């Protein structure tokens, strides 16, 4: 069984394939995986895929689209390999961006910022006026950062989005890589995969934010029907911190936050929160935070910078706060409230991606070239009527990767993106976890988010 038989059609999806060069030769850093794939053959591959799917189901490795529908997270087990020299660039770029955005937020809430126009940043749904004049503990707003990148080829990675509120996916990164290494040991043979320790990184970060020796930390979840509940449970187990719901917490008379437990109520020092609307889950929590009675990860108000319109000014933030030029390019974006930009967008609508400013998880993203005529007309009308709700972005021809279609017993090419996670501790040190979560778009599509039905893929950085 040869690879060319596995890869029956090999129809080009993107100009750049991660897996093979333009002549169809497997790239050097994929050779060993490609050999393993050939050795296994389609029958064995399909059998293993089935077994892996069964384990995903049994382990409740889920991502819910509909809260009442149990849904195992779909995954593809062919690893994505990132060469070390690419990773150095990504890692430096992510670090730089995280630091600059955090500085911007400090200035926005407790200082003067002149980079982003006030009518842009103050209308962001996640700008919180009550945080004004507040400096978060140790000057960190964004503790956990998820950045969405796409690869244009030859190490050129472009930023699509920043996720600064409650970025999710790191447990998916961990679980897919972990399962791949146990279920498909032959893929990893011959690779020197860069290790990372999320547990140690997170716990050290939590400790650095608190003034007490051994802080009481909890993970606040929106409950077992939430789409990424698997991640909440998984991180709670991994970090060894209790998983709590809003009803388990209350704000005491002394202003501190307490967790109700069977034995006693325990004062909490730090809440790793995985819900955005804190008021709804725990009235009084915001006051406790602003009174410095509890640390929140991420801080309240960090979302003001993950507005997709504020995104436009990130390169200026890097220049102004760090005196550096941005290492990572970002997708060229257009502000529909600006007359010149708006005219350009209306004239070139069919070539652009339209995104809702405050959407997330692929909701409110319209890739115009991939839409039908009638759908396009509807979006066009929508943005003319509500220009303040949308931004426009250039459509990128980003890379594709091989995915094993176990029903057809063949490899196929589908587009992939990369969400990389980084953390920032109380001393301003940034750690970027090597690899990330590679998400695979639906066949022929460009939207990779798990909420839109995309697959996860194990991702390695190799030397």
């Amino acid at each position, binding site marked *: 069984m040869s690879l060319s038989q596995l890869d029956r059609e090999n129809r080009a999806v993107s100009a750049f394939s991660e897996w093979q060069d333009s002549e169809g030769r497997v790239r050097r850093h994929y050779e060993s995986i490609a050999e393993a794939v050939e050795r296994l053959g389609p029958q064995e591959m399909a059998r293993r895929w089935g077994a892996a799917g069964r384990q995903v189901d049994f382990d409740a490795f889920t991502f819910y689209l509909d809260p009442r529908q149990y849904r195992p997270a779909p995954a593809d087990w062919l690893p994505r390999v990132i060469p070390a020299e690419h990773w150095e660039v990504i890692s430096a770029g992510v670090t730089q961006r995280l630091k600059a955005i955090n500085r911007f937020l400090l200035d926005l809430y407790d200082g003067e910022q002149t980079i982003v126009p*006030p*009518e842009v940043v*103050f*209308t962001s749904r996640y*700008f*919180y*006026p*009550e945080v*004004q004049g507040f400096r978060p503990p140790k000057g960190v707003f964004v503790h956990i950062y998820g950045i969405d990148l796409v690869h244009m080829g030859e190490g050129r990675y472009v930023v699509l989005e920043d996720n600064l509120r409650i970025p999710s996916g790191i447990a998916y990164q961990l679980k897919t890589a972990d399962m791949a290494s146990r279920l498909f040991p032959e893929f990893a043979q011959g690779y020197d995969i860069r290790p990372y320790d999320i547990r140690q990184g997170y716990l050290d970060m939590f400790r650095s934010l608190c003034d007490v020796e051994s802080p009481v930390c909890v993970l606040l979840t929106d409950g077992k029907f939430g789409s990424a509940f698997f991640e909440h449970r998984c991180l709670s187990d991994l970090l060894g911190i209790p998983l709590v719901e809003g009803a388990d917490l209350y704000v005491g008379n002394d202003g501190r936050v307490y967790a109700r437990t069977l034995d006693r109520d325990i004062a909490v020092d730090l809440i790793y929160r995985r819900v955005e*609307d804190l*008021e*709804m889950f725990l*009235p009084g929590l*915001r006051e406790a935070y602003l009174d410095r009675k509890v640390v929140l990860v991420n801080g309240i108000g960090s979302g003001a910078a993950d507005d997709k319109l504020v995104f436009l000014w990130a390169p200026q933030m890097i220049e102004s706060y760090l005196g550096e030029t941005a290492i990572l390019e970002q997708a060229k974006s257009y502000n529909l*409230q600006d*007359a010149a930009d*708006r*005219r350009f967008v209306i004239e070139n609508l069919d070539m652009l991606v339209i995104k809702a400013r405050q959407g997330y998880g692929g909701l409110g993203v319209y890739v115009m070239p991939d839409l039908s005529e009638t759908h396009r007309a509807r979006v066009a*009308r929508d943005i*003319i*009527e*509500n*220009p*303040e709700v949308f931004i426009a972005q250039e459509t990128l021809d980003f890379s594709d990767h091989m995915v094993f279609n176990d029903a057809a017993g063949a490899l196929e090419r589908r587009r992939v993106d990369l969400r990389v996670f980084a953390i920032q501790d109380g001393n301003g040190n940034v750690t970027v976890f090597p690899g990330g979560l590679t998400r695979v778009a639906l066949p022929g599509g460009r939207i990779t988010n798990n909420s839109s039905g995309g697959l996860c893929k194990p991702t390695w950085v190799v030397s």
Partner: protein
Amino acid sequence: MQTYLGGELDCRRATVSYIYAARYGYSGDVLHNDNQIRLFPREGEGQDPLRTRLWTLPRGSGVEYGDRFGNRVRRTRVVEPHRSLIVATSGQVSLSTRAPQPADVYLDEVKGLAEGMEFVMPSPLVDPERVSALAFCVAGASYSLLEVAWMVTDWVYREVRYGRGATNVATTADQVASAMEGVCQDKTHLALGMLRALGAPCRYASGLLTGQTGETHAWAEFLHPYEGWLGADPTRGVVNPPARDYVKLAVGRDYTDVSPVNGSFLSMGTAAECAAIASVEFGETEATLDDALRLLEGAYVVRNV
């Protein structure tokens, strides 16, 4: 029409004092209430705010900024649990008593203006296409800007009955054209739709009528290539009125851009009632929050909003 100028020495300017107060009632406790408030007088076009104040009860925290139409906006988040929210504002404004003297121009002259591009396009409540047949019936034979403005304004003033009940805040221009009845907001939307259908860039202005106690007012403004934005009030049947007639609070493409208080709240209950009242007097009197609350007692209450 008001003639008393409050003993002003400079008869080209008049100073007015205004109060606006609104109360929003809810059927359950509201945990957070996040609103963008557009209740500051605009600067320019014959109007100079001298002093402005804004209160909310309960108090909230807020920021101020200008939106893309140049309206001054206060974004306020109230996070103290409440069952009713009061927004009140007062201030003094100096207004020009003279109207501009615009020269009439061909309609084609305004069609290409970059400034007006956005204001000939459809907006959420005004779709020019749906009233274009009507617009061409009424003023299709005219080629000059002022003539078109006059004909549309006058037609809407005379033909659309003034009355409440047939429409609400979400009524679109074409719905007004079929009901042929509405309040100032509806008349303005219809006039905007017709003017846009004819190619004249025009915008929605909201504010307070001077010398009156009552509701907020709305009128249209059309773009003139040399004089800028000129008023066209289809409720009063006036084109190019002096700035003295209004305290102009906000402009936009239609009501959705300028609604005085616009936002979202988090509650198990729903919005149950709403009351609003405005008062504008000539002269320089300083109004307090108590004055505003007293005024609010006399406001007309709309239930089950």
